[in-house]
């Protein structure tokens, strides 16, 4: 029995830590939950991608679109590229670091889940709470970095506004605000989930449940970083 459980736990941990693995019907119910949650995430991200694809294609189209100048009766191009504040690169760095801390948090949660799994099966009567030893608060750190990123975006917006570029000033500024705001809203969702997962730690929820939540949030977070890099490239290439 112990061997089967431990194998199952190791399998589950393999799934967690390695990010892949196909649980068979002997593995923990937990692996199945994780697989289902990841599948759900992939589907959800497909929906999110369509939103950004729509905005991006609207951006490309608008950039190249001439419009009728009634005075001359001819078609003119009126696209004025936006000068992107350099602080945006600093902000990007913050997000990249946050994706690293997020990954570390994900692996940490996975290890905790595995530890709980093994300790539970090995000793039936002792406490099942994870070790309280030195734990780097990777999760909290990621949340803080995420919030810093959002604050940084806000500062970039302030800088643009100070130079006279608002949402309605011209098409390129409209798209800038649109793309950054949409990305920011999605990132905020991720941050809120991180805060909830952090709080769950203190309420001693099952380490496995937390591990699933943190795993999903981590992949979501990585995707948000990847998306941000794409948006930046799209905006930069406009020059």
């Amino acid at each position, binding site marked *: 029995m112990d061997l089967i459980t431990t194998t199952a736990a190791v399998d589950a941990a393999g799934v967690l830590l390695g990010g892949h693995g196909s649980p068979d019907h002997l593995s923990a119910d937990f692996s199945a939950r994780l697989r*289902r949650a990841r599948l*759900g995430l992939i589907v959800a991200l497909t929906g999110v991608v369509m939103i950004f*694809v*729509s905005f991006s294609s609207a951006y490309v189209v608008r950039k190249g679109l001439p419009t009728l100048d009634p005075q001359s009766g001819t078609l003119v191009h009126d696209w004025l590229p936006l000068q992107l504040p350099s602080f945006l690169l600093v902000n990007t760095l913050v997000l990249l670091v946050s994706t690293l801390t997020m990954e570390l948090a994900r692996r940490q949660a996975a290890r905790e889940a595995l530890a709980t799994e093994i300790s539970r099966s090995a000793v039936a009567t002792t406490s099942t709470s994870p070790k309280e030893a030195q734990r780097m608060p990777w999760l909290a750190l990621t949340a803080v970095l995420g919030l810093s990123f959002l604050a940084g975006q806000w500062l970039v917006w302030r800088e643009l506004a100070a130079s006279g570029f608002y949402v309605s000033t011209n098409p390129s500024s409209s798209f800038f605000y649109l793309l950054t705001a949409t990305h920011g809203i999605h990132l905020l969702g991720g941050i809120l989930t991180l805060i909830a997962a952090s709080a769950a730690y203190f309420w001693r929820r099952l380490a496995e449940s937390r591990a699933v939540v943190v795993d999903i949030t981590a992949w979501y977070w990585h995707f948000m970083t990847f998306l941000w890099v794409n948006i930046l490239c799209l905006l930069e290439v406009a020059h």
Partner: protein
Amino acid sequence: MATGEFAAHAAHAHAAPTSWIRKYVFSLDHKVIGIQYYFLALTAVFVGMILSLLMRIHLIWPTATLPFLGEIKPETYLSLLTMHGTIMVFFVLTTAPQGGFGNYFLPIQIGAPDMAFPVLNMLSFWVTALAFIVMIAAFFVVGGAPLHGWTGYPPLSALQSAGPGEGLGADLWVISIALFCLGALMSALNFITTTLDMRAKGMTMMRMPLTCWSWFITAILGLLAFGVLLSAGILLLLDRNAGTSFYVPLVTINGQLAGHKGGSPLLWQHLFWFFGHPEVYIAILPAMGLCSQLLSVFSRKPIFGYKAMVYAMLSIGFLGFMVWGHHMFMSGMSPYTAFAFSVMTMAIGVPSAIKTFNWLGTIWRGRLRFTSPMLFALGFVSLFVSGGISGPFLAQPVLDIQLHDTYFVVGHFHLIMGVASIFGIFAATYYWFPKMFGRMMNESLARWHFFISLIGTYAIFMPMHYLGMAGHLRRYSQLTELNYLHGLVPLQTFMTYAAFVTIAGQFIFLFNLFWSMKFGKKASDNPWEATTIEWTTTTPPPHDNFGGHMPVVNNGPYEYSVPGAPRDYVMQTDPPLAKAH
């Protein structure tokens, strides 16, 4: 043992709720959520139907004074048609077949205890319900409901002063649609994950009933399309309220400069129809899946060409994303692009034709039982043919020159969406009512409902093709201004009277529905002698659908009249047939 703890945890998550609020309002049970969606759609369809009744009355008696409403002004007529279209397309056709019946029966038909994410499922319903409330609110704000049509083309929909109702009413319309998109995306997530990850042992993809395939493909379409509509709506809200110019070029409105420049009205059309075309397949695919199911059950024959039916639905879904430009042949789009879209559009007619041939092949040499679901399934085939045949006319740009924006188009999409798809909802109701409510609906009332609806809707919508050919334009609130329309008034009058009768007939259904819930004949677990898994459960099914005994599937979904078998149907969970399937 660790897994035991998980199982216990999982079981706790699935334990039946006891409080009234958790049981009926914020339920996580897909069956309750399905019923909630169904009743939302039922409310919406009656609102939509009343709106269309008012439209029909106004068209032939433009100066009539109605109780409560007074005289219907041209702008009111346009608001009626805008809200009619929006409510019907979103809150009826995209809600009842998928959110209603799909939610209830997908998990059961694949042998799962619930949807993959029950909390998300509950949220998706409540977001959709909120969207409906916001939509209805548009009627009651200053200016009233918008008049820009369900297609909402800017600049008309982007300029607050372009007409009555284009103020707050139009903002609420956009917000409602945006909320609906969110609800639909959440729902699509659940359907796809559930279908891929929660099928019972032995339920391979190719053993799934065609209803499950249709819900699955519809969910994929929704996942890819609703995000685009959401984006389009956000851009529209920004143009309306934040001074941006995504869609609006330099224009004047009521003699004043509107304050926009450089935008493209065609951008909206591309985004909207990229969503809009898959949307019409979202509206019809579940009905197609159900039609296949019912024709098989009530002909006591396997579906003709199961694999072909699956591939046909997959092709329809896939090609559905490549034809949106056929709504834009006259829009100012390049004629070369129009040609490309028209070839794709003709191509998409092929899988639809294949399905029709296969339906006919299913009833050929069958033993037909004319139950109420079967009547509506047969009616569906007839209506699908009629509505589909006008497609190839519109798909050819050269003919679309004459027919675009006329009643020909209105007749086309009403026969397919407004009748065939609705017949699918009726068929589903009569078919699954026994499983959902434990009683049978009244067959005599059902037959009256069927014949009044079939004949009535043909009487309303077939003449629209004649009107269109004669040049009668759509979205005209009156026929008084153009000389060539005067001769078409008698036909419009006929259609209005047909509408009165048809609408009256729907109250027979409504009465039957509610009366049968209390007084209908008690139903057995499998009153139709059908083979799919939902008929193996009790009526109504228990909280986890199977009372703890998850099904194991050995057979395909359409094993009827198997030579040598003891009965003329073999359940999917029965011991395997000698011939592996």
